[in-house]
Each structure stands twice: as C-alpha cells, then as structure tokens.
C-alpha cells in the first residue's frame, strides 16, 4: 500500500492505508509551575483515524491532549514549550487565534458536561458563537449534528427539554454532537466513557467508529481493551514521557519497550 496515493484508494480500503499527518508534535514540554508534566514529546497523529493515548494516572496523557487545543492556557502558572503543528501550522504561534483553533479542534470531556440549557440550545451554542447559521439553517445544523452523534432519534421530540433530563450516555453523545456542530477537523476525547455504563460505552465506541470516516480522533483512555478495540495507533505515556508509539496491534501484542509490555499486560498501572 505504501507509495499508492491515498486518494486513489477506495474508501473501504482507506482505513488500513497510510494517512497524511494531521498533527505533528515536536519537542513538547509542559510545566505546571515547577513540575514538568510532559517531557520532550514527539509524535505524529494521522488524519481520519483514531489515535489512542494510554498510561497510568498522572502520566501526562490528558495534559498532552489538552495541549492540542490549548486548553492548558487557562491553567494559571502553566507553561508550554515546543511545537504542535496542525496541518503544518504551529498552534502556539502568538499570531494564532485560539477561538479559530478550538473551532477546528473540538473536545469531549471525561464527564458529560451539557450546558444548563435545552438540548437544542446546547448544540446551537457553538454555531451561534461562530455565526455559522441562523433560523432554519440552524435547526437543520442541529438536526444534522445530533444525527451524526447518533442521538437524533432519541431526542427529536425533546429538543426543548433540559439537557439534564437525558441519561449519562445520551448527555455524552449530546456533548459530542455539540462539538460536531461547529464542524471541527479534530475531535479530542478525554476518557469519554469513564463515567458511563458498558452499554453506553459501546454506543460511544460505535459512534467513534463512524466518526473516524470524517474526523481525526484522539482519545485518552484508561481502558486498554477500549484502546485496542477502537484505535489504529496507540501511544503509551509514563511519567510525562511518550514511551512508545505505533500501530495499536503492535503496542498491544508485541511492544518494543519493556515498560509498555508491563503496562499492557497489567503488571502495573
């Protein structure tokens, strides 16, 4: 498959093919005050596939994820060094507009965090900020986003109800729909299933599988089975360092580094 143009392949084959790099991370260091949470991380994330980040608690994987859409900016006393390039453009360049960046790189959080508004208003929030649509266009956009988030059929009769009336799994899909509504290119997911029951988890995983056709997805997870199930590539973090990165099948069956092997076989973490 190497040497073959990606675009020339039929869609069904693309999944296995080598994809272009969407996000390139170079010598990324991150500090909370004096504590260094990320140490010289280098990594290339490919477009339109799922990249999983695993590692024990406090290993820096969430910090790394939040570095990709500059959510770490809001933490006082935090400092970032190095480069994160989105389509070749350094997102830490002072000229970069964080608002525009976050529109392109959306985020789904650990716990479902819908706004205290109706289901409709939750999804319409993003498009409204960016002036993407109004009136009936906005209604169409909300419907389209909820359909992509596999939630439309369940909520189409309760669009005006409070988002808190939905179940946890529905709320998390609502949060995914809310992100999709601003038409991002990358979706970052920070342990999106850790607060959900197994059935809801399964639905989210199916949804991710759908979404990777169109979006670049980076997921942080504590659940190695999940990482193995959904992702094409996996990175293993330990103590702020990226220990190993490669195809998920390799990481989970034949890792190079002893520490990766110990972790994925459940010897620690």
């Amino acid at each position: 498959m190497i040497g073959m143009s990606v675009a020339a392949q039929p869609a069904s084959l693309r999944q296995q093919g080598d994809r272009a790099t969407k996000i390139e991370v170079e010598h990324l260091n991150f500090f909370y005050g004096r504590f260094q949470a990320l140490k010289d991380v280098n990594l290339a994330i490919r477009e339109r596939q799922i990249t999983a980040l695993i590692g024990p608690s406090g290993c820096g994987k969430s910090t790394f994820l939040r570095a990709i859409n500059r959510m770490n900016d809001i933490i006082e006393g935090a400092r970032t060094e190095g480069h994160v390039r989105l389509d070749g453009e350094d997102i830490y360049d002072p000229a970069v507009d964080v608002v525009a960046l976050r529109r392109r790189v959306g985020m789904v959080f650990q716990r479902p965090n819908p706004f205290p508004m109706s289901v409709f208003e939750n999804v319409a929030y993003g498009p409204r900020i960016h002036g993407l649509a109004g009136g009936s266009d906005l209604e169409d956009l909300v419907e389209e986003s909820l359909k992509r988030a596999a939630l439309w059929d369940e909520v189409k009769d309760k669009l005006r109800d409070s988002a808190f009336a939905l179940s946890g799994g529905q709320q998390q899909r609502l949060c995914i729909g809310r992100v999709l509504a601003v038409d991002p290119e990358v979706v970052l997911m920070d342990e999106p299933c850790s607060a959900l029951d197994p059935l809801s988890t399964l639905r989210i995983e199916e949804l991710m599988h759908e979404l990777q056709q169109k979006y670049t997805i980076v997921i942080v997870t504590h659940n190695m089975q999940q990482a193995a199930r959904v992702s094409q590539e996996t990175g293993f973090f330990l103590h702020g360092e990226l220990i190993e990165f490669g195809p998920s099948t390799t990481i989970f069956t034949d890792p190079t580094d002893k520490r990766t092997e110990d972790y994925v076989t459940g010897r620690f973490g």
Partner: protein
Amino acid sequence: MSALQVGESGLRHLRRKAANGMMWVVAVLCVLAAILPLGLVLYYVIAQGASGINLDFFTKLPKPVGEPGGGMANAIVGSLILVGLASLVGLPIGILGGIYLAEFGNNRFAWTVRFFADVLNGVPSIVVGIFIWAMVVVPTHRLSGLAGGAALGVMMIPTVMRTTEELVRLVPLSLREASLSLGATHWRTVFRVVLVAAKGGVVTGILLAVSRIAGEAAPLLLTAGSTSFWSTRIDQPMPSLPVQIFTYAIQPYDDWHRQAWAAALALVSLVFVLSVAARYATRGRFRMVR
C-alpha cells in the same frame, strides 16, 4: 450486676442524662425566643394592619389631619420607583463586580474590593443616607427620588456583589471548559453559560438585597424626603412606605396610626410578592447551582 450498672457510675450516668436533657431544653427555649419576636411582628402587623387595608388605601392620596379615610397610593408607587432606581444602580454594579471578583479576583485589588464591600455591608444605613445627602442633595439643593434611589442602590451593591461572586465560583470548571473548548471567549462563557448556571442563586442574592432596602426609612429621610402628593418625577421629593410609616407612627392621631399599620402590612406584602414573582420568573428548568 455488670460493670455498666455499678453504683457510682450509675449516678454519673444519671447526671449526664440530666445535663443532656437540660441542654436540649435550653436550646429549644432559645429557638423559641428567636422565633417569638418574628411571629409577634407578623401577627401584630396583620392584626393591626388588616383593618386599614381597603381599596382606598391603594388608590387614594393621604388626607390632611382630621379628615378620615385616604390612602397611600403615592407612597406605594414611590417605594416601587425607589426600589427600581436602586436596582438600576445596584444590580449592574453588584453583578458585574461579583463576576469580576469571581473570574479575575486573585489579586490585591480584588482583595481590597472584597474587604470594602464587607465593610460597606456593615455600615449603618443612615450613614449611607448622609453620604448621598452630601453627594447629591446638597449640590442639587433638593431632596429627590434620584437621591433616594442612589442611597438604596449603594446599599444593594455589597450584598449583590458578594452573593454573585460566591455563586459564580460554585459553577463547575467543566462547564467553563466545555464552553471555552467550543471556541467561546471568556466573557461569552461567563455571560452565556456561567451566569445561566448560577442564575437561581444570584436571584436569591438580589431578592435579599431588595427586601432589605425596600424597608429602609433612615437613608430616605435624608435623600428622598416625603410628600403627601403624587410624585413620579425623580427630581422631586418622593414618598415611600417606610418613611410614611415613620411619619404617621410618631403623630398622636389614631387614624394615622391605623394607616401606619396598614402601610407596614403593605410593605411586608410587597416584599413577599416581589420575592415570589422573581422566583417564579427565573425558576430554572436548567438550574444546576442553587
């Protein structure tokens, strides 16, 4: 006989039980003593005021001494205008100030503001009245509704500011992050998400402040003054229920006393109605933080 029942320790046990019972009785008595005045106040206001409440009370102007009847329509309207003016001054400053303290309040300046807000909260209302008298009444050479509204507004600021700050702080970080990660700016996040989430509590703070100032007579004596006539111009002296109660209560006429009681009942009811209405209007279907 087990060790738990031997003589001396049995006596101690009784003493402990007695002490326990005593403390319970004392605590209950203190609670009753605290509730009693409140209950009596309500009882007296209703018992004495109810007879003076009729249609005339709400629709007529006060009559001169000796003439029976008349009402307090001007004072009721005046009180509403004064509370409205005070809200125009106090709410924006209080709410925006509270947001500032909660969102950007990790510095020396914010610490100072907080300190002075707490001090202002404890300043006697008559002192606020004197302050506005010196700042507004003296330069304009007249008592006015505007001065009264300003005095009450100044009194609202610390309460509204501090409760807004506390409630904005209670909104979970995850909600702010959700908004910011969608590309919203800090200010949009605060106004469209954080304030919406904190709405219920902020309204409670506003109601507390409004209830407090609606019953103030002291600062109004020096600022809004009083009149027995219609006064809807805010550059003229403006009557209000508390000042009217004061004026009527210190006179030796029985029918004025009755009017004063009725005015007291009207004032209590006004605050009650305002509270219920505001609660109803902002009842959050989506409320998260109380």
